[in-house]
């Protein structure tokens, strides 16, 4: 591939992601406003429902929930979108010489933009709720770690999905299990009396990932070294697994598209 072709193909990824975002709500009532309304309504609904379920004050719980749920939604959207993206673009991959990982990359970019929109909603809630604490300065690093986790998992799933088209329900169930067993919806102090559950939580990597956002945003504290170590290691392992599986399988993938 020449450098001009490489530039053109990278531009294609950027342009395609832009078009997915622009065309998503074109023609819809309220148009692009849904890009903000849709995540805002979802988050408000979730906050209301789970504040009732957890018997928590909505004003307090909303910040806790948003801090964990917004990065989780990014991970889920990126992983599921990336997973199906290669076969969904068989029309391109059968007719043009374009690296297959560009299609998961488009979905990753789209999910990243949606994440920043939802994060803007969180910032607005924070402005209404409580003052910023100094530890929020670690958030760019936290975003980077979550981006690594999402990209690695998404790439790995996108390779697996080419060979096994029936894994979607399994992946969805797995993600749902990880979400509901982690500390994204409930605070650890609500299960303080249950030593077994607390011990199990110590083995759940999602709790460490979530802590990178929950601690600086909700508690106003710095994430612990263990939070960074487990999260960064998860990102590194998933990125390596995604990259290695893609490298090993990308020639064979063409025969399954």
């Amino acid at each position, binding site marked *: 591939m020449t450098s*001009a072709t490489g530039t053109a193909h990278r531009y294609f990824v950027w342009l395609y992601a832009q078009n997915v975002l622009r065309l998503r709500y074109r023609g819809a009532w309220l148009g692009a406003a849904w890009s903000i309304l849709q995540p805002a309504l979802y988050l408000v609904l979730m906050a209301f429902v789970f504040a009732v379920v957890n018997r928590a004050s909505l004003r307090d719980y909303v910040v806790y929930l948003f801090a964990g749920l917004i990065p989780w939604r990014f991970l889920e959207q990126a992983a599921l979108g990336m997973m199906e993206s290669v076969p969904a673009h068989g029309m391109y991959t*059968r*007719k*043009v010489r374009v690296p297959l990982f560009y299609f998961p990359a488009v979905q990753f970019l789209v999910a990243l933009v949606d994440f920043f929109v939802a994060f803007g909603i969180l910032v607005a809630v924070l402005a209404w709720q409580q003052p910023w604490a100094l530890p929020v300065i670690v958030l760019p690093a936290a975003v980077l770690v979550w981006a690594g986790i999402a990209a690695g998992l998404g790439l790995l799933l996108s390779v697996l999905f080419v060979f*096994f088209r029936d894994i979607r329900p399994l992946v969805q169930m797995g993600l749902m299990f990880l979400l509901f067993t982690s500390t994204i919806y409930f605070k650890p102090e609500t299960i303080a009396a249950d030593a077994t559950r607390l011990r199990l939580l110590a083995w759940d990597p999602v709790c460490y990932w979530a802590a990178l956002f929950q601690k600086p945003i909700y508690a106003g504290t710095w994430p612990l070294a263990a939070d960074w170590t487990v999260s960064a290691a998860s990102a590194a392992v998933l990125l390596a697994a995604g990259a290695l599986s893609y490298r090993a399988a990308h020639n064979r993938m063409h*025969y*399954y598209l």
Partner: protein
Amino acid sequence: MTPAIDVQNVSVRFLKDPLRQHTLKHFLASRRSGGRGRLFTALDRVTVRIEPGEIVGIVGRNGSGKSTLLRVMSGILPPVEGRVAVGRRVTPLLELGIGFHPDLSGRENCYVSGALLGLPPAAVARKLDAILAFSELAAFIDEPVRNYSSGMYARLAFALAMEVEPELLLLDEILGVGDEFFLRKCLFRMQQLIRSGVTTVLVSHNLDYLVAQCSRLIWLDEGRVAADGAPGEVAAAYRSREGHRPT
């Protein structure tokens, strides 16, 4: 001289009934039974060497492996066996309008599809006037292509494709639509391109067109090279065999 394309003993085998076989369920069941997926051989130890400047036609019945060979030559499909070496910047035009989105305007689609064909945005901007002039769509270029007729769609797609400036052009039966006047214009433009010394590989069912355009003709039959040589001779052999083959 280094060949433009050197295909050596290339084989390609696809899975039969791919949708059923691309599942975890099938994978687990086939591991238990020790069986392998059923395969279909699309190319069987094909060897083709194309020199720079040659205009090569490929002919054969449906399913004979013509399009698969073009996909292998263009680097889209890596072969399961054999070796492919391509010495030039290859431009595969296996279908017109790849990447066109119906809700985007003609202009926007030129950028998206152009990027897929290897044209950076600055190059598309530079060539846009030529694309508009050739396609005669200046008045509609900011309309969504959803509103185009199939002829207008093909005109825009063809005009864009012809601006790629290839060193090695691979064409797969792309001229199927458009009115007769525009078809003649396209054929003339393609002829200009081919005659300019660009190495070209053409796949078509139009044998007369291939004989008129090509310096060499390859006949593919059931994934193998049945004949390779002067267009008139290969076309006669192909007609003679296919004329007697039950359909």
